[in-house]
């Protein structure tokens, strides 16, 4: 088990190397002047553009530039993001908690709804509940998040004024940026509670309802389908028949026998779900104007803010790779065949 983990961990730097190299080669489509923005920390430096190009070898072959850039990254200098109006490292610190909180808040409902309805679907195969949940799943799978997001905004913001876009209103903005507000966890909902600000908590929570619902609806289909098919497979196996023959109540068979086995692929999938959410937030945050990594990345790409693009995509890729790693490790933990075998 330990060997398996170490092997996977050793692989990580190689993937990150490949990821940065790929991103960096994409940037070669741009002119040296545009790439120079990677090394500019302050708009005032713009007057010495030619000097910057010269200093960082931006007209040199790509591998030399890449080496120079890696050195700079190793020193922790990631450049200044024009769209975020702050250095990249600071922008990551500002935007990442928002994205993480949104993802986290969407994640647990997705797991619960997906597994619950997946199991119901399998147990009542071809009954009404099965048809309904499968229909809901395939529609969610087919509905682009930006369409759903805009429709939700139209109804719940435009018509009903219940759930506004953004992350908070002006009053909450002032409150959380006041010196007296302690950021214990970085998760704003939790921090509001810890600071005893009930009203601010409600505001922040209200702003998350629509984006989280969008993520839930478009992401739950996959989980539901997988749970349903693995559950159906388990229910048809011999040990379930034996349990039935022994006269065990159906509830016990489903919960203690079939579900325990059916959940193995589901647990593995859970971190892949998390990955899917990371892709999903790109559009969702943009639609709901939610200040996270996704919205920042899109704005940076639209305005060709290269440091911003590199910062946000590298972070996304890093999280993605980590989630994959966790997925593999979880698989080893829950499935004794891998744990013992390898």
């Amino acid at each position, binding site marked *: 088990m330990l060997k398996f983990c170490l092997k996977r961990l050793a692989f990580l730097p*190689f*993937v990150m190397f*490949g*990821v940065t*190299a*790929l*991103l960096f080669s*994409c*940037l070669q*489509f*741009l002119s040296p002047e545009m790439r120079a923005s990677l090394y500019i920390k302050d708009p005032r430096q713009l007057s010495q553009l030619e000097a910057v190009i010269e200093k960082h070898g931006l007209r040199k072959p790509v591998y030399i530039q890449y080496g120079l850039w890696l050195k700079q990254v190793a020193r922790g200098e990631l450049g200044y993001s024009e769209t975020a109006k702050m250095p990249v490292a600071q922008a990551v610190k500002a935007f990442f908690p928002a994205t993480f909180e949104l993802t986290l808040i969407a994640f647990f409902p997705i797991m619960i709804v997906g597994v619950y309805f997946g199991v119901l679907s399998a147990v009542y195969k071809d009954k009404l509940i099965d048809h309904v949940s499968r229909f809901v799943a*395939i*529609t969610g*799978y*087919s*509905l*682009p*998040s*930006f*369409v759903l997001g*805009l*429709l939700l*905004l*139209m109804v719940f*913001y*435009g*018509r009903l004024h219940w759930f506004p876009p953004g992350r908070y209103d002006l009053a909450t903005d002032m409150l959380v940026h006041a010196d007296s507000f302690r950021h214990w966890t970085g998760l704003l909902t939790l921090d509001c509670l810890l600071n005893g600000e009930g009203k601010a908590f409600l505001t922040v929570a209200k702003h998350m309802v629509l984006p989280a619902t969008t993520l839930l609806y478009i992401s739950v289909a996959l989980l539901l389908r997988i749970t349903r098919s693995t559950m159906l497979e388990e229910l048809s196996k011999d040990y379930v028949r034996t349990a039935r023959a022994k006269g065990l109540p159906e509830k016990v068979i489903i919960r203690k026998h079939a579900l325990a086995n059916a959940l193995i692929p589901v647990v593995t999938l859970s971190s892949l779900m998390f*990955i*899917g959410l*990371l*892709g999903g937030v*790109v*559009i969702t945050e*943009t*639609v709901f104007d939610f200040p996270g990594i996704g919205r920042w*990345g*899109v704005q940076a*790409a*639209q305005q*060709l803010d290269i440091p911003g*693009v590199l910062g*946000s*995509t590298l972070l*996304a*890729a890093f999280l*993605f*790779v980590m989630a*994959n790693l966790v997925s593999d490790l979880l698989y080893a933990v829950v499935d004794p065949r891998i744990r013992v075998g390898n």
Partner: protein
Amino acid sequence: MAKLKSIWKVLKHRPMSLLGFGLIGFFLSVALLAPVLAPPEAGSRDSYIIPQSGYSPDPVRPSKEHWFGTTEQQYDLYYGMVWGTRTAFSVALKVVGFSVCVGILLGGAAGFYGGWIDELLMRFTDVILAFPDIVLAVVIVAVRGPSLENVMIAVTAVSWPSYARLMRGDVMSVKERDFVAAARAIGASDARILFRHIIPNSIYPVLVVASLSMGRIVITAAALSFLGLGAPLGYADWGQLISLSRNWILGSAGNPFEYWHTVFIPGIAIFLFVLGWNLLGDAVRDILDPRQK
């Protein structure tokens, strides 16, 4: 004929698959009949450019003159929807076609030759798959400049690795089979073995996955258009028509749904188009996959 009959036998009992066929059939006929359904104005150079009636920023509700109303800056929504169907088909088919071809060739080569070629190609797919696909696609379009062509290139670039991996696995198992050894024994060249014997025998899983991923690819391409990275303003493209509605979700005082048509009509079209492909993909899988029978 017998094959068609057996396909019909599967479909008959699956109303959802029939719905999928119906939806795609409907969109296909709209695309083919576009010049009849929405004749371009006389003297227009490019039929895909949506005619504008005036330059007022506010969308106008559906009327006799504009069946689906107009978007902001008075682009005729009906015209955009009809010609956008052609754009949607062309983007979806080109992207899936190209990425399947690249996937089959590179995956086939990796599985067939093994060794360092395999290692190199597979590590390359690892790197591409280390990104959420929309993220890498956004970067590619951003650095190459916004255009429909670059959207297609970007989506192709992030889609082929999964086909290549699938193909590689299948080729690795097929190349151990006896008929490959037989072909080699009679002196067939590598290329002949690969293209005549191995690829035709390992291509089905890739095709099944390709038909299942059609819907997702349509969504990714539309999302890039929605972000303003796709076709130029005024081009008949559903994703862009939706992005034109972003400023109008609030309606006017006293009438919150005044501009409902700007989101709803293109939104429903994309939804039904993707739903059609997804249902169709399920049907293709069930017809081709012997394990399901």
